[in-house]
């Protein structure tokens, strides 16, 4: 199936010479929830901004449902809703007016019934007459979401929707995201929270220093993450893995003193006992033993640390 958003070799150099995006390519499938993870300054907001038309790309291209986002900007922008990272809202407008404004701006006929449903959905209906500046941060975040959804977009970008949001509102947001997905909206969200990606995303992308390091199905990623490792420290250094242990696909550390074995603890045939016997049988003397379990966090940190 044709991806709804397709990013090709996208690079962005800001006016001050900063390389915020480096040859990013990414396909986003229709109806999926994609979480973009990455440390501060990784380029998440820049990527979203280029796709939405707020920042010009230096090179590369973006298409949305087959339309180029520069040449055919009306078509692409009309399909996209954006919830920005910062709480950027006017001060002197009311909730109702600002949502109505957004819908008009995106070229849609007024539809008070739809907007009412939207505000009710976001628990904003009783505040519809409130001035924006009188709202709390969490409410403002909801208003921004309402504005982004006011024109019934097919693709929704949420730039750190749960930053500075309490636990309850976070659960609400996740529920909303799932509901939207069920109604066919494709959702791309950025986050610093790995639990968040785990909780709601179908796929996870990791960005660091302007590069997209990986995009993977969450379940596959979790599977990888679920694996454990047992590391055996040896009395004497080895030059290579002994032939008797060749079947085990062990890894030898550079200095030759540690052998590691990865396994999936969820399967019954972890064969730890067997492995240890085999090591003894091969005439190796074990000095120490440890097991580790990699978390998404670890993988994340590892990915982000070593420039690939």
């Amino acid at each position: 199936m044709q991806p709804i958003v397709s990013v090709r070799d996208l690079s962005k150099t800001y006016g001050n010479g900063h390389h915020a995006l480096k040859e990013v390519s990414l396909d986003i499938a229709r109806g999926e929830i994609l979480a973009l993870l990455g440390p501060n300054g990784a380029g998440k907001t820049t990527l979203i901004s280029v796709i939405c038309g707020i920042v010009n790309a230096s090179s590369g291209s973006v298409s949305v449902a087959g339309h180029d986002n520069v040449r055919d900007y009306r078509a692409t922008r009309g399909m996209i809703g954006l919830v920005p990272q910062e709480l950027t809202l006017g001060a002197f407008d009311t909730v109702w007016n600002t949502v109505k404004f957004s819908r008009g701006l995106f070229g849609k006929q007024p539809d008070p019934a739809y907007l009412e449903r939207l505000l009710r959905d976001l628990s904003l209906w009783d505040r519809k007459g409130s001035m924006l500046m009188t709202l709390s941060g969490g409410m403002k975040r909801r208003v921004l979401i309402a504005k982004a959804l006011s024109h019934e977009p097919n693709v929704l970008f949420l730039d750190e929707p749960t930053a500075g949001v309490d636990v309850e509102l976070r659960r609400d947001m996740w529920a909303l995201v799932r509901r939207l997905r069920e109604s066919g909206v494709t959702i791309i969200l950025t986050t610093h929270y790995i639990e968040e990606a785990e909780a709601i995303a179908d796929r996870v992308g990791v960005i660091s220093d302007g590069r997209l390091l990986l995009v993977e199905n969450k379940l596959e990623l979790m599977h990888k993450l679920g694996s454990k490792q047992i590391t055996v420290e040896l009395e004497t250094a080895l030059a290579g893995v002994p032939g008797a242990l060749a079947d085990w696909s062990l890894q030898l550390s550079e200095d030759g003193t540690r052998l590691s074995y990865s396994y999936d603890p969820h399967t019954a045939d972890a064969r730890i006992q067997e492995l240890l016997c085999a090591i003894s049988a091969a005439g190796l003397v074990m000095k120490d033993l440890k097991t580790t379990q990699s978390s998404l966090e670890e993988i994340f940190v590892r990915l982000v640390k070593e420039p690939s």
Partner: protein
Amino acid sequence: MNTHAVRVIYKFEMMRAWETLLQSFVSPVLSTSLYFVVFGAAIGGRIEQVQGVSYGAFIVPGLVMLALLTQSISNASFGIFFPRFTGTIYEILSAPISSFEILLGYVGAAATKSLIIGVIILVTAGFFVPLEIMHPVWMAGFLVLTCVSFSLFGFIIGLWADNFEKLQLIPLLVITPLVFLGGSFYSIHMLPPAWQTVTLFNPVVYLISGFRWSFFEVSDVSVGLSLLMVLVFLTACLLVVWWMFKTGYRLKQ
């Protein structure tokens, strides 16, 4: 054409004026009345007539122009500067809307507001002195052209300024002196010959002269030249705005 978008921007900008009614409409009227009292009554008593027109009436076109210029510029510059300043511009930039439609919304609203103010001032002036407009069509033409071109100019300033100081800078340091030295309160023929020549480099002179001609048929320069200068200014502003949008100047990184 995304007419919904133009409409909501226009409406939003007009609403801003209604909500700050005092500042938007009452204050220019008040300050014009003050000018009128001070210049018309105090000084006018001594000058009596300029080029066959009573001094009180003579300054009306200049006063209207003064208000139009400052109001057009401040309305339009503030209108686009503020969303840039607060960050809400992201929504305009991400919307399916062309540069022309953005202009239509913002500049259209700013021009409308100053047009309303101009008319209110004219009417107010009518209470102080008998006003006769000999060429109403020319008068309306100058009124509209001035509103539009200076709203465009204000839009440019609103894009160019990256802080509140700069936003005030041009109106304060350039426009106000040009208007005061542009023959709002006197005919440039009243100046020494050398200064008359210098004044001809002031574009506002042409504006005020042409506008005054449409009232009293007296002018410092020919009315055709006045019209030409306004159109040149309008075109120049359009070109600058076109360039700004094309390059994303101060709008898009």
